[in-house]
Structures are given as C-alpha cells and as structure tokens.
C-alpha cells in the first residue's frame, strides 16, 4: 500500500526473494557456462557467444515457466502465496535475462555484415510462408517486446495510472509472450539439435504451465458457489460455515464476487477484488482488525472497505441480513468505502 511512489518499498521478505532469484540465475548461468562443458561427449568447442546465448535463453525460458506456475500454484495451495508476493521482480529479472540472450544473438549472428543488425534480423530470412524455416527470431522478438512492456509497466505508478483493470488486462500479455517464446524455441533451437533433452524440458515445462492452469481453473469453478436469489437478496449460506477471521466467497449473478467476513462474531461483506491488483480478498484473513489481501498485504477495514489512514484505497461494500442462521447479501454494491453496520450473529453462534 502506498501513499507516495518510491522505486521499490523494500522489506526483509523482498530482499530474501530477490536474493533467491539472483541466486537461481547466477547458479544456472555459471553451471551452464563453466561446469556443464565437462559433461559434453565431445571436445570441440561451440562458439562462446552461442553458448552464452543458449545459457541466457534457456534460463529466461525456465524463469518464465516458473512465473506462470506461481499464479495457479498459489490458487491450488495457499502456501505458495509468498512466491507471488514479489513476482514483478521475477518478471523484470526474466526480461533482463531474455534481453541478454537477444544481445548475444544479435552481436554474433547479425554482426559483421554490411547491413545493420536489425536489418539482418528482420530481412535475412523472409520465409514467412513456411513452418520449418519460418523466421523464428521474430517470435522471440515478439516475446521480448511483451516482456519489456510488462517489466516497464510493473511499478505501482502504472497500476494506478492505467487503473487496475487495464493494468491487469495488459499483464495478460504474459500468456502471448509465453506462447511466442515456445514457438521461437520449437521452430529454432529444437529444429537444430540432435539431442532431445531440451525438447523434453520445453515439452514438460509447457505441459506444467497448461496443466496447473487447467487444474486451478477447475478448482476455482468447483468453489465458485453462485448464490441463489431470494426476493432480490442472494443466499450466501449458513453463518456457521464462516470461520472467525476468514471469509466465504460468493459469485453474484452479474459475475462479481463478494467476500463475507466474520470478525468478532459479526458479519461484513466487501468486494472480493483487491483495489491493488484484483487479488482475492476473500482468501485473505483479518489481521489487526482489517481484511488483509493474500497477495501483497493491502488492508481494508471490514465494515467500510477503506484502507486505514494514511492509505486511501477503497473497495465496495455490500449489505447483509440474516434469516435465522442463513446469510443473505444484497447484490447491489455500495459505493466503495461506504460504511455498513456489521450484522451480529445470533447469540447461540457467538
């Protein structure tokens, strides 16, 4: 949560997160360049720039795979949520590694010619009508541009400037980026080597990303209870099902989700989408009296959906009522930040 923009709001967890990221990259690159050659079954050296392009390119692909796995993993098992916390640094690092790969390629394959490197890259192979022989470099370039846009707009300044909805939509570019990168590898590198190890790695990585997304979507659909209507009010369920400090999420007929929280034996409902990046507030907890988003920890007071001062974020609230022990929600959202008196649970449930 921020009241002013700073480049990065550091804390111990972010330092730890970045340290692990850098550790992974350094370990990978050093192992690839310095240790792996000892395992080769031939002594003839591949050109240094090509080996470096391979090291950085494969590293960027693996990082991208992990980035795409974090989201569904966190939805499948909340213990993975800490991996999501600083994912934007993960993305920025990945785009830097991918850019390094591109630089090694440009400075080697497209260097030493009378034409400019860009002219060489875009003009040397124009076999767009073929699958094999397709200029796969342009797919890599497309992926790189997507990653560059994501990295450049990853800061909260852009999130607020573009609005969370647009920002979120823009950041779905990660999927076309991944598809372009898989195509880039499949039509380039994988067509050019006899050893099939990397083909297996790419196949498994792609299957992992697709499989985890399918699994998470399936789980989410299973959990997504659409409330039944009762004279305009929507049935949430039995109040006894909601644990103290936690929420039950219900999907309204218009597709919006509401999180009904129980706090100190009283019930309150706020929109499920966090004002930050649409994180699922209903999967969060009440910490220090505030609903705390499971993604980056933005907080909202449960009764009025406002972040505590000095923060200014707000989410819509909803009216609740009880019919015996059945909780019902008015599907018409209140203005963000509008106070709604919490609904006290019957005495026998307190």
């Amino acid at each position: 949560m921020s009241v002013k923009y700073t480049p990065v709001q550091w804390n111990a967890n972010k330092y730890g997160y970045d340290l692990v990221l850098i550790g992974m990259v350094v370990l990978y690159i050093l192992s690839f360049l310095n240790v792996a050659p000892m395992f080769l079954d031939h002594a003839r050296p591949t050109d240094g720039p090509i080996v470096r392009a391979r090291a950085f390119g494969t590293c960027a692909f693996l990082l991208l795979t992990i980035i795409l796995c974090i989201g569904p993993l966190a939805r499948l098992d909340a213990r993975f949520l800490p991996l999501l916390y600083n994912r934007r640094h993960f993305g920025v690092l990945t785009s830097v590694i991918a850019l390094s790969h591109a630089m090694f390629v440009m400075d080697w394959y497209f260097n030493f010619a009378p034409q400019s490197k860009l002219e060489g890259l875009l003009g040397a192979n124009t076999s767009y009508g073929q699958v094999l022989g397709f200029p796969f470099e342009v797919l890599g370039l497309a992926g790189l541009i997507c990653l560059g846009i994501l990295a450049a707009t990853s800061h909260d300044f852009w999130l607020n400037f573009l609005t969370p909805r647009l920002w979120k939509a823009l950041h779905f570019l990660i999927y076309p980026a991944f598809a372009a990168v898989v195509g880039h590898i499949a039509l380039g590198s994988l067509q050019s080597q006899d050893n099939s190890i990397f083909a297996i790695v790419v196949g498994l990585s792609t299957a992992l990303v697709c499989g985890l997304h399918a699994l998470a979507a399936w789980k989410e659909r299973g959990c997504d209870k659409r409330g039944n209507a009762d004279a305009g009010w929507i049935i949430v369920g039995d109040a006894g099902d909601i644990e103290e400090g936690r929420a039950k999420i219900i999907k309204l007929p218009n597709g919006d989700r509401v999180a009904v929280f129980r706090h100190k034996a009283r019930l309150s409902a706020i929109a499920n989408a966090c004002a930050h990046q649409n994180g699922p507030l209903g999967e969060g907890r009440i910490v220090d009296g505030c609903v705390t988003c499971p993604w980056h920890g933005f907080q909202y007071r449960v009764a009025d959906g406002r972040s505590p001062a000095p923060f200014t974020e707000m989410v819509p609230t909803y009216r609740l009522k009880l019919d015996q022990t059945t909780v019902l929600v008015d599907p018409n959202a209140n203005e963000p930040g509008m106070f709604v008196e919490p609904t006290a649970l019957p005495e026998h449930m307190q």
Partner: protein
Amino acid sequence: MSGSKKDPFFVGYLSVPEGLKLFLIATVALLLGCFAALALTIGGTQDDPGDGAFRFDWGRQTLIGILEASPYPIVHVTKGTKRIPTGSTVLLSGNGKRGVQSRTTPLDGELVEISGVAIKRGNIEMLQLRGGRNGIKKVAGSVQMPSSKLLGRWRLSGEICDGKCFTGTMRPGRRLSHKACANLCLINGAPPIFVSSAPVNGTRFFLLVNSEGEALDNKFFHHVAQFISLEGTVEKRGNLHLLKADLSSLKRVP
C-alpha cells in the same frame, strides 16, 4: 507474523509465519537444485559443433594460384604452403559477412597472390582475405585453368549452408537456428555449400550452383538450412566439387 501455526497466513511486510518457514526453505532448495540440475543437463548435452574452425594457429597463409571469379570466387593453388598445398582449391571470402566479388571479378582467369587466414572443415578450405591488394593481387605468369571432370547426375539429400559459417567461422554454423545468419552471408556473397548426407567421389561438401553453373538466385534462400534433396550434375573443378542443381527438383525431406 500472522495466522496460526496450523493455518499460517503470509503477509509480505511481516515476518514469515513459523508454519511456513520449512515449506519455503524446501521450495527454495528445490528451485535452486532444479536450476543447477537443468543447467548441467541442458548445457552438458549440446551437440558437437563439428570440426570447422578458423586456423589462426597456421599463421597467415599466402598462396599463388589461378582465380576463377565466377560463379563464386575460388583459387586453384599453384604454389601452396605446408598447410594448404599446391593442387588445393580454396574458396574466398572477405572479412565477416562480406564476399570479395568486387575485388575478384576484374581478375578472373588471372594468376593471383592471395593472403589471409584459413578456415577449414573436412576437405573444404576457405581463405578470408586481408584488405585491398594485401589480400589479392595479380602476379606475373600464366598457368592453365585446371580441367573439370563430370561425375554424373545425382540426387543428393542434405542441407544448403553458407560456406563462410559452415566452414568454421561459426560453430555450429548450420541447421535452422542458423538460417537467418546463413542467408545474410549468402546475400552478401558467401558461397553456398551443399552438405550431403552421403558422399559422392569421397566428399560430402559441394559448392552449390544452378543448373547453368551460375550463382544461385534468391529463391534458393527459402530452402537454406532445411533438410532437402536436390538433383543435379556433380562436377570436380580443380580440387573442389560442384553440384549444378535443378531448383525444380528440390524436395523437402521429412
């Protein structure tokens, strides 16, 4: 820290809940372990790039021979060195991705002195010429152009490469990931080499020209670096084999 030990809840700006620490340490260890293992597996199974290389270790090579400027500049060596003996036929190139046609065309059929660094792969040799007249100049004397020998009509399977990278400037300098680079070399005048999967007359490397014996036209570039088969006449000129190929006979080999 937040959440109970049994039901930990991570909040980024608070300390990591006890119940999550072990899980996160295990995840980090798994990620680091996987990355190291993948680096070794992917990096340790790269293909052999072949035996082509710049032969800087041979020192500068200065040769005398008869220049055949077209379809691609080659020199039949009449006075060689220990490394490139008399009787060899060498392909010529300029620095980087540059041909030397502008320097060789006026000297077609002349006895020339050429000087530069050798590039060699198997039985195919190239000289990357020094700049200007240091690289190639006419010398006095006259010799006969070596006779050429026709070796019949063949259908060969293999790959079109650029003679500069394939011969050893890039390792590896072939297959589809190298196609754009190869095209760039060919566009700038490098000689195309057909690398056959089976030998004819003891060689798998052929200077590729069209059926008229002229330089290839750009349509061939779409097929560079792919596994194809071609029909044509094989001719031995000096010590170099040419494949005079018919573009219409080109087939993709699955």
